[in-house]
Each structure stands twice: as structure tokens, then as C-alpha cells.
């Protein structure tokens, strides 16, 4: 990737991030809240994109990593009273460990089997949150006590229930996730990933350890997804089994594909579009999911590479 292309993308990224950051001063309170949620879920999608878009592996069970982060952070905070920053780290570590274990076991399987294996493990995770309902609150879930939702830094206290604090924390996380994504793409790692995506056999023949590379991508993917989960739980103060269900695995797939798998900003675009669609449509009609379905079909018929993917293909070949 040439310097010029990288520079253009950095500028684009900076502009998008600046715009996003400034939104909190411009838009009404409700949108600040929704954008906060979008950013947290976008981090989830960014993690997912590393696996799907960069390496070409379609997992149908990524909700388990989001849930690992969510429960890791949430349970640490709820039962052990651990402070927010440490709980957040706890959530990330939990997701990392899970990603290592699952990656090791699932990656050797082939395309469709990989999808089902990840789906199955995710289901086991979901069932576990129900089975250990004594600790997890099961389907009802747990609300983190208000006292547990503030960060003390030196003399300052940041209240996580405050919209502004939340927005900026989510923004910070998004920034980090995008940066990781960006560096993966421009690095040699990124090139190995794309090589594997294009033709794994050939890459292996060229002497690369494809398994190690895939595992590495899997770790990045799962950990970032876990960070999103930990953030979501701590910022919004609720953990529950729903987040570990298949619905969320499918949603993140949708976000990523809609925005454009394999593009840097695709996940963000996908999240923003889907959430806005659902939110606005549900005001007008009860049948909003039906409209979503129709829109999905239309999008995939005419923009199969997702929105940014199509833009990249047709107009802006330098778009990362």
C-alpha cells in the first residue's frame, strides 16, 4: 500500500472521527445516547470485521466474545466490587482467553464447519449464562449498582451514568479499535491476512504459517469484540443472557456486511445504518422488521459488497 493511499485514508479517518466527536456538542441528547450505543456496537463489528473482512472467516458465534467481555466485566463489578477500569480489563482478559481456546479448536475446520462450530460454542455459552443463573441472573440479568458505575481518577470522579462521560469513553474505545484495525491493515500482517483470504492453499505453499496467522487474527477479533462487550456492560449498567444469543451473532454479521466487510470504516457505517433504520422505522410501522428485511435484500442485490465496499469498487479504489 503506497504512502499516498495511506495518507488519504488517515485523513479520511481523522475527518470521520473528528466529525463523530463533535456530534456530542451539536445533536440533541437522544442522539448522543444512541450514538454512544452505536460506537460501542461498532467496536464489536470492527472486531468481527477483522475475522470476516480481512481473513475471510465467517463466524456465526461472535456473540460469545461480546458476552465474555460483558459478563467478565459485569460479574467482576457486581459480585466482587472491582473498580471499573479493572473490571474492564477483566472483561478483555476473559474474552482473550476464550478466543484463544475457541480459536485453537475451531480454526482447523473448514468454511461451513467453521460457521457451525462457532455457532455451537456460542450456543453453549448462551446456555451457560442460563444454567448458572444464580451468578449471572439468567435471562433477567443483573443491573450494576449505581455506586459501581463511576471511575475515580486522582481527584476526579467520572460518573458513567452521565451521557457526556459515556459518549467520550465509547469514543475513546472506538478510536483504539479503529487504530488497531488500521495498523493491522497496513502492516505485513494485513497482507498475510488478505493472502489467506484470497487463497489459503497458495499462501501456505509459499511458506507462511497460515494457522498461526489465522489464530492471531482470531485473537484480535475476539478480544476487540470482548472489549466492546465489557464497555457496553459497564457503560449501560446491564448484563443479560440476550447478549449471548444467536440474534447478536447475526446482527454483528449484518452490520459488517452492510457496511462493507474488509473495509476499515464499514462496520461503523453498517451499525449506524441498521440502528437508525430500525429506530426510525419502528416509529412508523409495527412491521419495521419486514421493511428491514426488504431493505437488506435490496442492498445485497445492488450493493453486495456492502456500502463502503461498493464505493471502493466503483469510485474510490484507494479506500481502506
Amino acid at each position, binding site marked *: 500500500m503506497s504512502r499516498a493511499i495511506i495518507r488519504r485514508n488517515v485523513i479520511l479517518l481523522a475527518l470521520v472521527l473528528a466529525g463523530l466527536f463533535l456530534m456530542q456538542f451539536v445533536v440533541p*441528547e437522544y442522539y448522543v445516547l444512541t450514538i454512544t450505543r452505536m460506537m460501542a456496537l461498532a467496536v464489536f463489528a470492527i472486531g468481527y470485521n477483522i475475522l470476516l473482512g480481512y481473513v475471510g472467516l465467517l463466524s456465526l458465534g461472535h456473540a460469545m466474545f461480546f458476552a465474555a467481555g460483558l459478563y467478565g466485566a459485569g460479574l467482576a463489578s457486581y459480585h466482587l466490587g472491582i473498580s471499573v477500569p479493572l473490571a474492564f480489563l477483566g472483561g478483555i482478559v476473559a474474552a482473550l482467553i476464550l478466543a484463544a481456546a475457541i480459536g485453537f479448536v475451531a480454526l482447523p475446520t473448514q468454511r461451513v464447519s467453521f460457521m457451525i462450530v462457532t455457532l455451537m460454542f456460542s450456543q453453549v455459552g448462551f446456555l451457560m449464562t442460563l444454567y448458572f*443463573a444464580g451468578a449471572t*441472573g439468567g*435471562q*433477567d440479568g443483573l443491573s450494576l449498582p449505581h455506586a459501581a458505575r463511576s471511575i475515580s481518577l486522582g481527584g476526579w470522579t467520572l460518573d458513567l451514568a452521565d451521557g457526556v462521560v459515556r459518549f467520550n469513553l465509547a469514543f475513546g474505545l472506538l478510536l483504539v479499535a479503529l487504530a488497531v484495525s488500521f495498523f493491522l491493515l497496513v502492516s505485513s500482517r494485513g497482507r498475510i491476512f488478505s493472502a489467506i483470504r484470497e487463497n489459503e492453499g497458495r499462501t501456505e505453499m509459499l511458506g507462511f504459517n497460515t494457522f498461526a496467522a489465522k489464530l492471531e487474527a482470531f485473537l484480535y477479533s475476539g478480544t476487540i469484540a470482548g472489549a466492546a462487550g465489557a464497555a457496553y456492560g459497564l457503560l449501560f*449498567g*446491564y448484563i443479560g443472557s*440476550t447478549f449471548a444469543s444467536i440474534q447478536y451473532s447475526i446482527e454483528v454479521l449484518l452490520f459488517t456486511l452492510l457496511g462493507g466487510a474488509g473495509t476499515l470504516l464499514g462496520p461503523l457505517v453498517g451499525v449506524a445504518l441498521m440502528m437508525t433504520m430500525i429506530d426510525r422505522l419502528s416509529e412508523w410501522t*409495527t412491521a419495521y*422488521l419486514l421493511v428491514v428485511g426488504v431493505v437488506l435484500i435490496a442492498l445485497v442485490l445492488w450493493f453486495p459488497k456492502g456500502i463502503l465496499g461498493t464505493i471502493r469498487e466503483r469510485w474510490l479504489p484507494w479506500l481502506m
Partner: protein
Amino acid sequence: MTKSIFSAGSTLTRRTALKGIAAGATLIASPYVLRAAEGGTIKLGAPFHRTGIGASYGRWYERVAQAAVKLINEGGGINGKQIEMIVEDDGTDPKRGTEVIEKFATEYKVDAIFGHLFSHVVAAAGSRAGELKVPYLVCSEGHQLASGALNRYTFQPGITDVKSQVSSMAPWVAKNLGKKVTMIFPDYAFGHDHRDYFSAAIKAQGGEISALIPIPPTESSFTRYFPQIPSETEVIYHVMVGPAVLTFVKELGDHFGSTRPQIFGFIDSLEAVDLATPQLDYLEGTYFWEAYPRYAQANQTAFDKFYREKVGVDQNGASTSDPKDISTYSHMFSVWETLFVIKQAMEMAKYQGPDQKKDFIVALESLEKFPESNEHPQGEKIFNGKTHQVFGKQNISKVENTKLTVVHTTSIEDGMYEPEVDYTKMDL
């Protein structure tokens, strides 16, 4: 996080200044000063379960709410203002439910939110509503509120909770049906509540639990669970919710045949389901808890007649426009009664807008009794201002000729329990 510009030492950023000016303008423009007779409405957010697993209930909740709102508006509204009910679907999903709460609080800026039913949605949404400081009136029958798991902005003044319902059943069951009980329940929070409260209550009556049979909520076939029922069981207690209940009853019948123990269930299993369905033949002669009898009884009150007429339900608890559309009669009254409670409290607080939220909350907490009336057709109620939970009568009905006939009504005291929390001590 707005500090009033009237308070000393406030940090006056442009944002707070603008908000302060707006607040000031509202104060100046309020009827206390200008005496505007009309203008402004009372906005109520209604996150009904229009889709998802709660959809059967959500639709009826919406119908009943619309009937109640129409009635109140025809009578002049609340404090001279008409009620504007804003409905949004939450898909019976905790995440979406919470987002909808945020929307009501920050975009529509409603005066109060009411109408949630499913407990996992309430759990998520309730704490958010508390953070956003929006009065949140639950129409659920969950015990989370009274157990202290929610916050001072949450109330349940329209329907009793499951602990109260279940424990008030035990004395009658022990005396009339039997003391050895096998419980069949769905293996999640709702079922666990039944398991825990009824086990405690029946033991207090000198009874015992013969067996506990938890069933996964999505189970579609039950035959293989029935052999776990011990032969000395005197009563089978069931509360199977979900689309599979018809299968459950039929297979129960296949299993036992004509020599069966007594059977006691909660009408939750059969809300919106027609008792005359052939698969439910086996229920003949069995008993059900009902909050509010679906079939109009011989001693039907004028209040019940009025209520049925207004919400469009006939003598059999079905929709007047479609006799096959059975209502969720033991739950939907919660919406009706909650709306009238909102009216009552707002009138007490002379409520005109969201700046008087705290007055509204305090007024709600001061309520003590609701007499049986058009506003409270299910029956007389006692409200506990500290736990924010209401207590009322429960009914036990017998299935006779595919209709339900009430055989026993508990007193309000039968369902009372020691308060577990005092929300009034918390800050607003």
C-alpha cells in the same frame, strides 16, 4: 445534569445557560402564571411488546391502554390536559426495550412510561429509567420491584406481583386439593419464582413438594417429563407459558388418562388461548389461578361490565369483533388501572409538566387504597408506598364446560408479605 440558573454557584456553560433559559421560559409560560387553559399535553410513553414472544400480550395491552386514554381524555384529561400516548415496539427485547426508554426520556421527553410486561425487559429498562429519572410504571407481576432490585422511579400500582399471587394460593390448595405437590415450571426466572415462592408457601401450610420438574422454555414436547411425577402426588402445579401449552395439556392427558391427581395451574399458560380448543379437553375439572376472571361471573359487578364494554371484550373474555381472539384478561387490566393511578397521582400533585416529576413520585407514594370501581375493576387494592407495589385479591377458578367459574377469592391480606425495601428513603 442541568443546574437551575437560579441556584448559586452553577457553572454557566452555554449549554446550561440555554437550558436554564428554557427552564425559566417554561416556568414563566406555565399556567400558574399565564393561566393558559389549553396547550400542552401529558405525554405518556408506552413501550408495548408489539412483536417478539410477548406479542400476544402487547397487542391487548395496547388496546386496553387506548380505551383508557380515550376515556380519560373524554372526561377532560388530567388537570385539563389531554393525554398523548406514544407507542413504540420493543420487540420483547431488553436491549431494544432500554433504547426505547431512552428515546421516550430524551427525544419525546415524556412525563411517564408505562406498560412493560416481560421481566427480563423490565430488569434492563427499569434501571435505565431510574438513571434518566423518568417515572416508570410496570405492568408486569414481577417481584423485582418489591424485592428492591429497581429504583425509586419504578412503580407497580396496577397489578400484584408473583410472590403475592403464588403464596396466596397455598392455603386453599393445601386445604382443598392436597398437600403433596409436584411442580412443573419453565426453567427460567419466571418459573423459578413460582418454584421458590410456592415451595415456601406450601411448606408453611404443612404440605410438601413431591417433585420439581423444570422444563426448558423452548421445549415443544413434554411426554418424557411426566414419568418423573411421583405416584403419590396429590396435586400437579403447572405454569407452562409459551406456544406449547396445548401440547402440554394434551400430553398430560395422554399420560394420566382418567385417574389423575388434582391439577392446579396459572392462567398465564392460557392467556389469549381459547379454552374451548379440543386439545384442552383434559383441563375439565382442573383449577386455575386468575387475577381477573376471564368469563363474566354470576356476580359480575357493574364495573366489570363497564370495563368489558370499553375495551371491547365479551362475556367470554374474547374480542367483541372476533370471538376467536381471546384476550389476556388476567394481565391487561394492569394497564387500565395504572393509567387511572397516574391520573389520580398527577391530580394530587397538580402536575403540569416534567419539572414536577418529584411531586408526582411523592404523590404516588402517598396513595394507600384503591376501591373497586370503574377505574379499578379487578377489585379493591392496597398500595404500599414504600415498596411501590400494590396488593389485591386473587381468584381460583374451576374449568366447567370449557368455561372458568370462580370457586374462591382470596383476601388482600392472604397475599401480603413483609416489605423487603423502602424506596422512600432513597434520593430522587
